[in-house]
């Protein structure tokens, strides 16, 4: 059968090779994409519509179709914006999201719990989309392709490949680096100013952050500048470095001031109720669920993930929904016949425990 391998995975034919990329990004890519298209699609549809719903996971407290729809939405949003500043056309985001969902489903005999599945789907969607965008930009030699026109943080993308090119002797010395400080400085100085670091001190910290970008990490022996796939990822990467360097600056300053006759102590800086020093960047208040899941995966049990996923992440159920769900309450260990108030109390306790673990693992 043309277009399918032995396992039913779709392989673009000769004429189709790279067609998706042409449509999506105006480029061509010879990579093949393995997603499954059932030859008996009509039969599948009949099955789907005959059974009004199907259970994806026995612990699920919500309608599985609802879960898949939420998962699809998250997947599409991530394909549309794999990283802040990259924008993919809506129709092409839909194609990417569908392909990723199909490919991931091939890896499962039965679907895993919702949180795990969703985290993986959006993570792989972001990775795939970033790879595709980077490939297009590389092929077209235009680093500005698919940059969000509403992104006003800086004027223009730089060529990431050139930034990541390291000379054996001179290291990261491509002339493209001459433009990078102009892009990063306003963002960094604004962040440092919010933290109370200004003037020459801020310039010193900023210089340190640029050095940090190309310094090999002790564990991986790899410079942070090599991590991004698209240029837009440099911005949050550098932002994190700026925040760490700001903390270092305060520590150094407090160490100096803790010397005899040196004035304020670090505790005075951080504990002053009138002028508290803010180490958290209040502007960075969003975090993708796949990152939250990766950070806290081990800390929470499967049941705790299920609870907070449905209540807060996907918002596909309320506490009241769970209270009235006998099967789910049984899974939580709540005795059959327990009163609604008892169920609510137990669920609230479990939720608070799970949120506490999230809070502790993300350190805020």
């Amino acid at each position, binding site marked *: 059968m043309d277009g399918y391998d032995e396992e039913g995975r779709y392989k673009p034919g000769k004429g189709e090779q790279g067609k998706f990329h042409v449509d999506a990004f105006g480029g061509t890519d010879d990579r093949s994409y393995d997603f499954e298209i059932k030859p008996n*699609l009509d039969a599948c549809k009949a099955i789907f519509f005959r059974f009004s719903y199907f259970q994806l996971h026995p612990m699920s407290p919500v309608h599985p179709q609802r879960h898949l729809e939420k998962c699809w939405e998250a997947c599409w949003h991530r394909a549309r914006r794999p990283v802040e500043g990259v924008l993919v056309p809506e129709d092409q985001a839909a194609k990417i999201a569908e392909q990723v969902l199909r490919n991931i489903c091939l890896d499962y005999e039965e679907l895993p719990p919702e949180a795990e599945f969703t985290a993986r789907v959006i993570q792989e969607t972001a990775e795939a989309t970033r790879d595709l965008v980077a490939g297009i930009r590389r092929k077209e030699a235009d680093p500005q392709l698919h940059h969000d026109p509403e992104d006003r943080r800086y004027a223009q993308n730089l060529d990431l490949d050139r930034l990541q090119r390291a000379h054996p002797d001179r290291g990261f010395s491509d002339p493209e680096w001459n433009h990078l400080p102009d892009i990063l400085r306003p963002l960094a100085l604004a962040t440092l100013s919010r933290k109370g670091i200004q003037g020459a001190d801020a310039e010193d910290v900023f210089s340190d952050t640029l050095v940090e970008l190309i310094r090999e990490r002790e564990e991986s022996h790899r410079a942070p500048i090599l991590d991004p796939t698209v240029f837009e990822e440099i911005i949050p990467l550098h932002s994190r470095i700026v925040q760490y360097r700001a903390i270092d600056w305060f520590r150094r300053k407090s160490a100096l001031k803790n010397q005899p006759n040196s004035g304020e102590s670090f505790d005075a800086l951080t504990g002053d109720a009138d002028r508290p020093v803010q180490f958290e960047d209040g502007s960075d208040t969003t975090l993708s669920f796949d990152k939250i899941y990766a950070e806290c995966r081990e800390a929470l049990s499967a049941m705790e993930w299920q609870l907070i996923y449905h209540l807060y992440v996907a918002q596909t159920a309320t506490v009241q929904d769970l209270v009235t769900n006998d099967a789910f309450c049984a899974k939580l260990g709540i005795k059959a016949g327990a009163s609604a108030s008892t169920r609510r109390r137990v669920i609230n306790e479990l939720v*608070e425990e799970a949120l506490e673990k999230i809070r502790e693992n993300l350190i805020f």
Partner: protein
Amino acid sequence: MDPDLPERLLPARDLLSRSLVLHPRELAPAMPSGLAADLAARFTSRMDESTPVRIPLTERFRNWLASPSFGLAAAAAVVVGVAIPMLSAPDPATSEMFRGEAITSPSDTVRIAFIGENASVAAAIKSSGNFEAVAFAADAASLPGPKVVIDFGTGTVTAVDSSGSTIHSTPLPLDAKQAPDAVADAISRLSGK
């Protein structure tokens, strides 16, 4: 969502609630019907084969003990258990039988009485273990109710019912070891009456 959450947990909750869709103003298109159909076809059959969650019998029993229905059932059982004896209480003359050890009517007890003396046979019967010690009485003739009379003088074992009629009589075995069996046989005839 949950106004009862402690304030320290609200940032974690808010972070989670914003984590799936970072740009909520953009609306995702509907899920392609073909994708939904394929996912359903892929996972429905396996889910159909999966066994439903089964709760062990002991767990069900524990759950039932912890449920309000058990409380109602227990209360009902207590009410029935108390009310029925009260409603069907016997007359005051026999009500004292509710106290102390269970007492059978004296008229129903088979007594064993000896007439004359034969120490070895009497000892064999008493020590046989087949009869209660309280069953033995010295003045058999004056006892009411059923009795077995062992007359060493005539050498007979006689079963007399509560009306005083002799319903069975057999010679007392010469072998003392066989005497208890003869007495037991006589008692069984009274009981079987």
